[in-house]
């Protein structure tokens, strides 16, 4: 039954199309259904990031003089500030972790194939924006670790021909990492990247609704119909159970293991020992570390950056490279995914030794 206000609004907005769609939407049930929950888990952590981000920005000061001190104030003086920062930091890690899981599930079930190429590509952009959120956020507390990580990270694009030097300057706001870099990173983190992520999310989610949930290869080939459950309320209730579990884990970790804050970074001091980036960049960090100074006639770091760049481009175009008919298994693609996972794990563990 619609009340007067509801029907008045509906005549103007046409909400009923959307509610009708959501009421009729179904989610397939099969042995790979668990991966469907990763997308909404990412949205959960993203929402937490937005809310805690709004709160942190009330006290944070994005300047050379004020940044470290303001984070210290959030951690010590602001009522419950330490929990808010801790949740923001942990939820960022969780979000990235689930982005990786979401991505690997899409890769291994080959869900990126026709007609979902653009869903994959918008997803790769979302991955890039998520990593940039992490990278820019890492600098904001302005301690020794974050400064060195930013110096390295912003120097990496320099090896790319033509645009590299400009990319480094664009990120740093000049030739070197300075107070301007901090202010600029704050701008990226709280105004530019959010615009991009909302647009990309809208495209990504629209495409998923438009094309329906992807069925894994095993289920797609079968003649008999796959069992389906209604999206509302059955699937949403199941998702809520997952969210509650994840929130429990998140808050427990945030309360018992809050992030540290070192003394304010000094721009001219030597890099401290034991610097490392966030865990999701460790495999890249270790790759850069083990490349020798010269490989044949090339600089080691130039070569490493090139390889990473080529891998990124191939990764983006994966749906066009593996465009076999849906029923083909694509064993090589699966093996490549497994090799990459092994590489990332080995490099990450190595960098922690």
């Amino acid at each position, binding site marked *: 039954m619609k009340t007067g206000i509801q029907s008045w609004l509906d005549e103007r907005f046409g909400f009923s199309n959307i509610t009708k769609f959501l009421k009729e939407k179904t989610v397939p049930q099969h042995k790979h259904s668990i991966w469907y929950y990763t997308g909404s888990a990412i949205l959960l952590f993203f929402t937490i990031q937005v809310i805690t981000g709004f709160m942190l920005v009330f006290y944070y000061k994005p300047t050379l003089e004020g940044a470290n001190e303001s984070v210290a104030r959030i951690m010590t003086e602001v009522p419950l500030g330490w929990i808010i920062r801790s949740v923001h930091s942990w939820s960022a890690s969780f979000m990235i972790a689930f982005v990786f899981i979401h991505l690997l599930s899409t890769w291994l079930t080959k869900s990126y194939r026709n007609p979902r190429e653009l869903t994959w590509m918008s997803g790769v952009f979302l991955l890039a924006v998520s990593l940039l959120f992490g990278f820019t956020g890492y600098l904001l507390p302005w301690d020794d670790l974050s400064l*060195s990580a930013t*110096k*390295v990270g*912003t*120097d*990496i694009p320099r090896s790319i021909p033509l645009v590299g*030097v*400009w990319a*480094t*300057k*664009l990120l740093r*706001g*000049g*030739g*070197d*990492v*300075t107070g*301007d870099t901090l202010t600029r990173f704050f701008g990226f983190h709280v105004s530019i990247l959010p615009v991009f992520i909302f647009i990309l999310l809208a495209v990504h989610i629209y495409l998923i609704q438009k094309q329906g949930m992807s069925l894994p290869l095993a289920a797609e080939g079968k003649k008999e119909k796959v069992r389906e459950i209604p999206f509302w309320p059955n699937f949403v209730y199941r998702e809520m159970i997952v969210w509650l579990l994840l929130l429990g884990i998140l808050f427990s970790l945030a309360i018992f293991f809050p992030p540290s804050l070192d003394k304010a970074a000094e*721009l*001219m*001091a*030597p*890099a*401290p*020992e*034991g*610097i490392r980036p966030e865990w999701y960049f460790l495999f890249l*960090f270790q790759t*850069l*570390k083990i*490349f*020798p*100074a*010269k490989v044949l006639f090339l*600089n*080691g*770091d130039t070569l490493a950056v090139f390889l990473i760049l080529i891998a990124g481009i191939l990764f983006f175009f994966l749906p066009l490279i593996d465009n076999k008919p849906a029923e083909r298994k694509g064993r090589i693609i699966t093996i490549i995914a497994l090799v990459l996972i092994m590489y990332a794990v080995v490099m990450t563990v190595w960098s922690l030794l």
Partner: protein
Amino acid sequence: MKLKHSLFTRRQFLNGLLGGWLGALLASFLYPVIKFVFPPTREPDQVILPFADFRDMGPNSVENFLWGSKPGILKKNDDGSYLAFVGVCTHLDCNVGYLPNQRKFFCACHDGWYDENGLNIGGPPPRPLRCLAVSIEGEDLIIKREGGERVED
């Protein structure tokens, strides 16, 4: 409509004109945006420091100074002469430190090593530390770019 010997129609010509004009307009909007986003960063031609601050350095020790927005490292050798470097690793731009006991410069980011003369001897650094020219004139310690060349960032 197209004239007999013309390569394109009137419509194409007008569209090209309009498109070119729009492109030029867009470029004129983009130019100030790009100028704004990339601030100029000029490396200093020279840095003049009071020599009195550095006279009492022991042999095989270093002091820091500001070389524009980068850290500079002034090192006193065993024979009393001075060397100056831009104290930035040639691998990925981290600040290096000097370890007097080992007589080496060290970059902690990716384990890069340089000998006491700034030569890259271990780890990923592809080039020696950038050397600067040191001269003492009266009470001033003057540090200039080696050979006078400007290195672009």
